[in-house]
């Protein structure tokens, strides 16, 4: 395996792994806070048990997310030293703030997990909220740093030198808001559907239905609201990308030729050699509208971008299709769910709806990973868009392939163990939290 490809694969794997855990760490505390609040207000033991059960999941995910995040902060240098040499002082501001947010999150988690019966109950609840808020802040800050790679700002690039560095301007680059918004909603959608789906499965199997129904409702409401808002945020992102990174947009839509008006392609097989797309459904003018808010606008194709600046088209296009496809599906599930809620029909009778949620367990995360593939692969061949190429940033050390194999083995085993632990946690719910109201 080529060292450059190995380095990219290792980075992709590490990020792909970390993203799932950090999203859960960002979102679950809010579910816990709702359940915890209901326990404090209603004295219903089920809510207390639910909060405790969820907090165990959060502890597992947080620990895994924390170590994989530590890993990443080193990996940036281990794999991309030439990038960090220049980028560190420019885009470091969000990272230094993130360090604070992450630290606060870790302290608050210590209070929350070990604070039962030891702290004032509202202070205890508050520490749980702090976990969520600082987790969310961490997520936004890290995404702001990534946004800088897509939309470099806060320095002047003169003759290969990075001058007049302004870290604050770098942090508030033009992409930070659209990316952070999209990511936060994605985190809520993905985690919400995954959690709701797992509890839906338990309701369908008739295990501790009272417990799982309460859990399902909390997670489902968060998930469905986020899924409804996500298309709006996607629209902001699309218009933003069209303006800043026309090559990425063209790759997302496999638009080889500049067109006016440009059609939206759904599906299709990309042939990168012939620069054609076969078998896609074309919606005339729709891409013009999505990118520029005008059905007749011109959309820049890859023909207007130098060949050596083209991102991999097929991967970007397929990933984009997967993300949008799943997003649409989850939007429909959410509308159905709210319709049923509105009609005040008991959920336990709507077994098909619960089955739909079970089906959706992995979907949010697949869409989320696909979205990151679009962002990252769509930015290639650049590591800092328009400034530094990824291949110029890679470490001079040979043999990165071995490092990639070792870390792949570690991440695969960790994923297996975490899944196994979660399975055991859920299996043990009747034993750990057996209360009279459960059957």
């Amino acid at each position, binding site marked *: 395996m080529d060292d450059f490809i190995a380095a990219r694969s290792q980075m992709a794997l590490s990020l792909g792994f970390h993203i799932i855990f950090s999203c859960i760490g960002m979102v679950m505390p809010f579910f816990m806070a709702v359940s915890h609040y209901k326990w404090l207000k209603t004295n219903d033991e089920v809510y207390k048990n639910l909060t405790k059960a969820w907090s*165990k999941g959060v*502890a*597992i995910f*947080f*620990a*895994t997310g*924390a*170590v994989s*995040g*530590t*890993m990443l*902060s*080193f990996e940036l*240098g*281990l794999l991309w*030293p*030439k990038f*960090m*040499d220049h980028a*560190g*002082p*420019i885009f*470091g*501001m969000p*990272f*230094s*703030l993130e*360090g*604070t947010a*992450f*630290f*606060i999150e*870790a*302290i*608050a*988690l*210590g*209070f929350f*997990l*070990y*604070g039962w019966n*030891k*702290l004032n109950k509202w202070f205890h609840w508050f520490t749980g909220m702090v976990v969520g808020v600082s987790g969310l802040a961490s997520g936004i800050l890290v995404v702001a740093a990534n946004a800088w790679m897509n939309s470099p700002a806060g320095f002047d690039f003169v003759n290969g030198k990075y001058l007049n*560095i*302004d*870290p*604050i301007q770098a942090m508030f680059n033009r992409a930070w808001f659209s990316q952070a918004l999209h990511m936060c909603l994605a985190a809520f959608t993905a985690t919400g559907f995954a959690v709701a789906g797992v509890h839906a499965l338990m309701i369908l199997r008739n295990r501790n239905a009272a417990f799982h129904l309460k859990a399902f409702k909390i997670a489902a409401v968060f998930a469905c609201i986020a899924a409804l808002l996500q298309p709006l945020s996607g629209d902001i992102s699309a218009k933003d990308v069209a303006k800043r990174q026309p090559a990425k947009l063209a790759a997302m839509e496999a638009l080889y030729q500049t067109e006016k008006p440009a059609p939206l392609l759904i599906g299709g097989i990309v042939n990168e050699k012939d620069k054609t797309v076969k078998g896609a459904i074309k919606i005339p003018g729709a891409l013009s509208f999505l990118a520029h808010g005008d059905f007749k606008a011109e959309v820049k194709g890859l023909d207007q971008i130098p060949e050596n600046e083209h991102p991999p088209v097929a991967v970007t296009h397929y990933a984009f299709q997967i993300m949008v496809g799943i997003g649409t599906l989850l939007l429909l599930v959410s509308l159905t769910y709210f319709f049923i809620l509105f009609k005040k029909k008991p959920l336990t009778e709507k077994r098909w709806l619960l089955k739909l949620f079970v089906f959706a367990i992995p979907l949010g995360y697949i869409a989320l990973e696909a979205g990151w593939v679009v962002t990252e692969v769509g930015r290639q061949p650049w590591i800092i868009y328009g400034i530094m190429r990824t291949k110029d940033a890679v*470490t*001079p*050390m040979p043999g990165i392939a071995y*490092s990639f194999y*070792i870390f792949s083995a*570690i991440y695969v085993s960790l994923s297996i*163990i975490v899944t196994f*632990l979660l399975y*055991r*946690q859920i*299996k*043990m719910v009747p034993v*750990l939290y057996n209360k009279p109201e459960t059957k």
Partner: protein
Amino acid sequence: MKDVVITFLCMAILLYFLLGGADFGAGIIELFTSTKNRSKTRKTMYQAIGPVWEANHMWLIIAIVILFVGFPFIYTTMSVYLHIPLAIMLIGIIARGTAFVFRHYDAVKDDMQWLYNRIFRYSSFVTALFLGIIAGSLISGHIDPLATDFYTAYISGWLNWFSVAVGFFTVALCGFLAAIYLIGETNEYHDKRRFIKKAEFMNVAAVVFGAMVFIAAQRDKIPLIDWVFKSTVGLSAIILASLSLVLLWYLLIKGKTKVLRILAGFQVTMILLAISYAHFPNFIRLKSGNAVSLLETAGPEKTIYSLGLALLLGSVLILPFLGYLFYKFQKKEE
């Protein structure tokens, strides 16, 4: 602002050595505990470090963020030439961090516990060892950016007598810190005796490995003796550390716990000071005889300014909250 940032960097590294080190030490102690006492040790340890577990490891993140934002040249030099030991340390951090949480949160306590325990103990040892190796390599003067062959560039920079001796010295110090910390976390007489024994054992080990570090330094032609004994600060630090050693043994035999902790922390701080003061503000000594200095490689002024501001703001939020965490979950003396 440069001074503020460098102060924070030193503080983060020191606190990681003390707090993270005590965490590693807990695993190391478990490794050297007889099978019949292990489950007891584990229980005490969990109560002691469970609540502060995640927070202790944040110091590493703070240190590394300060390095890559404020001193990118140091960060990338380390990343390139110490790639292998850093990667091994990271594998250790991942393994022990997850094993520690998994063994506690596995809803079924069965044979898997055996696996988690093994991973936790051995990876604690490996992490501390390589943390020490990395620290030793930075001052060993074996790192060679001009190297043209793989061995000199990526192996001999850290695989040398001095770095490895510092690695084992670090392992002993971590074990020592943990044992001292754990003495105060139990009220049971036999447990206390056991941890006191461990602390004594680890302290002897630290003295032995400390001597090895000096011998290895002689062998690798590192002027460690000059650094420590020819500078006033180095010399006074080492004298204070030695004096506190006598006091420490006295208190150990008496079984005074709270003062012990402060004393042990003080001792390790003095050792770090003695070794590092002579070449401060140099951070990495290179084979060519040159050094990479914190002052000379600091990032642009605006970056350092905003980094310092972020750190100050962060510490206002973090320190009281963290202090309260430690206060709230400390073992009450009965």
